[in-house]
């Protein structure tokens, strides 16, 4: 073992279908159009059921979500009632349904797997007002995943990954490795989290939330903004209906430093980036663009800038999508990867919303204006509580 280029020896992993749901829209195209127009999806929210103090939040529009869900329910499971599904389950079902609409039925068979990425799942079921929900057991992530899997008729029981803010990137990495190893031919990765008083009060207690929409990488950044999101990616060993984009490397590391603060040096994220690039057989100068985690907390953005410098990516164009739709937790790695894939397909990079003036220990090449430019290979990174870091490399064939 050792130095051989694994990406060339194993079978390639193609990206074959996707969906993003955020405050910006309910399909990838809708969301990308809104990104192009440059208008973020935050709204000042003073709903006391969600937040004790008014905050900018990026919320998915409930009426549209429910209307879309009802249509799918009538079409596929007329015997079931809308009330039997939680808000997050509706998001997952609408997202997966949209991503797989054009895909052949074999996607649900024995050579396929559904991976669910979520940090808190149906955590709102702990709320007093939701005590009467049909099935309190759905507080368990695996039970929620089972409901989603059987809704679509997946033969294999879904795999659930819950690894803080790297859940989405870790799920994509796991999926890609499974296909490469020949374990499955198709893996559907769906990531999602709702906003609830539980999560918002927790981040408030950490004093981690910005009073204004977050400003990743900016000198005036003052904490993160939270958002709801759900996204689905179909990874496949078949090129038939796929894009020409492959997953060509990935790596996960741990800081072994602190459970709620990032590494001071960025060394461990840099290590993940280095390993992922090595697996992809790629040099740092072959990376066209970095889709960063960019939460807009003081320490995360600092750490990321140091890591990118160590990894030799200091001058590579970089942005954070969180200035548009906030930190969407278990969805973040999935939906930010999809936006990255669209950048690759369209050769178009998005301005890093909220960024005006550099304010990091390392001067990064943060994208200031939307730009049409050849985009060949991309890196997506994420870091999270528990000291975890993840990196994944996408290559355009």
């Amino acid at each position, binding site marked *: 073992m050792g130095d051989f280029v694994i990406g060339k020896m194993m079978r390639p992993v193609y990206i074959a279908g996707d969906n993003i749901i955020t405050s910006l829209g309910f399909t990838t195209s809708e969301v990308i159009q809104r990104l192009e127009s440059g208008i973020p999806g935050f709204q000042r929210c003073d709903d006391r059921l969600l937040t004790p103090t008014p905050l900018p939040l990026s919320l998915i529009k409930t009426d549209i979500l429910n209307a879309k869900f009802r249509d799918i329910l009538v079409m596929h499971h007329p015997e079931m009632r809308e009330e039997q599904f939680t808000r997050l389950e509706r998001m997952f079902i609408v997202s997966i349904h949209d991503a797989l609409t054009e895909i052949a039925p074999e996607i649900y068979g024995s050579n396929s797997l559904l991976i669910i990425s979520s940090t808190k799942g149906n955590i709102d079921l702990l709320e007093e007002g939701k005590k009467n929900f049909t099935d309190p057991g759905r507080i368990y992530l695996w039970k929620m995943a089972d409901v989603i899997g059987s809704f679509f008729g997946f033969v294999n029981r879904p795999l659930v990954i819950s690894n803080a803010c790297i859940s989405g990137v870790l799920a994509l990495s*796991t999926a890609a490795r499974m296909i490469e190893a020949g374990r499955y031919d198709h893996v559907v990765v769906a990531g999602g989290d709702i906003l609830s008083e539980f999560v918002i009060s*927790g981040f408030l207690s950490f004093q981690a939330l910005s009073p204004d929409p977050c400003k990743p990488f900016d000198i005036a950044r003052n904490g993160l903004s939270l958002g709801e999101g759900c996204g689905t990616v179909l990874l496949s060993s078949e090129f038939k209906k796929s894009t020409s984009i492959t997953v060509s490397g990935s790596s996960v590391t741990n800081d072994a430093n602190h459970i709620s603060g990032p590494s001071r040096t960025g060394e461990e994220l840099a290590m993940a980036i280095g390993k992922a690039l090595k697996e992809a057989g790629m040099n740092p100068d072959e990376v066209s663009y970095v889709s960063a985690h960019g939460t807009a907390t003081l320490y995360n953005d600092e750490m990321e800038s140091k890591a990118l410098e160590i990894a030799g990516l200091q001058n590579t164009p970089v942005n954070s999508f969180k200035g548009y739709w906030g930190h969407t937790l278990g969805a973040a790695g999935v939906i930010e990867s999809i936006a990255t894939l669209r950048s690759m397909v369209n050769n178009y990079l998005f301005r890093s919303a909220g960024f005006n003036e550099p304010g990091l220990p390392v001067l990064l090449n943060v994208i200031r204006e939307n730009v049409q430019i050849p985009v060949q290979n991309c890196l997506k990174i994420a870091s999270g509580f528990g000291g975890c870091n993840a990196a994944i490399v996408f290559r355009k064939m």
Partner: protein
Amino acid sequence: MNEILFITQWNIIRKDTGVRNEKVEFNNEIYVNFAAFIKALYKKEAISYPKFYKMDNLSKLGFLSAEMLLKDTAFLDRYKKEEIGVVIMNSSSSLDTDRTYNETIKDKSNYFPSPSVFVYTLPNILIGEICIRHKIKGENAFLVSALFDPGKVIESVKLILDKDHAQACLCGWVEVLGENFESVLFLVEKEKTLKENNLADDSPFTIESLTQFYQHKY
């Protein structure tokens, strides 16, 4: 691909028993509650680690289980810190602490959300605690499954080890919900370490071995 992997150490911690490599480490005839149980276990391990007292119950159990597993082995010396992966699975994620945290925000007249509780409302914090303690910097994955699923744990570990994303792995099942808990951990390596663990042989890392260890009545 498909190298044979070996279980070089394993242990089980349950209310009534602690087992390491088939040897019963303790039998607990009187169980009072988790707090008393875990305190006794901490004392038994004879370590001094003040951060232990700040951990939630899931982290406490997994942390001590990893202590027991790594004790008297050269596992951590055999590998670079970034060559060791940690894969943990459970059923209720962090629900035990989610409930505790929820109590602090339920009543608006008695509202006291605390960051030191909230941080433990993510199950992978347990992995973080183990990594901090032993300076492990390799691959991480926290999986959630209805029951201990040896097949899924093995699949996840093999994805990491077969392609050299790591050379060895600490993996298994750590579940805590109220007074119900159970921990089953394994060290998985590419080479046997017979001398180290005084076993007749190191079992292959297979569904059969994991199931046999897990289901055996000690």
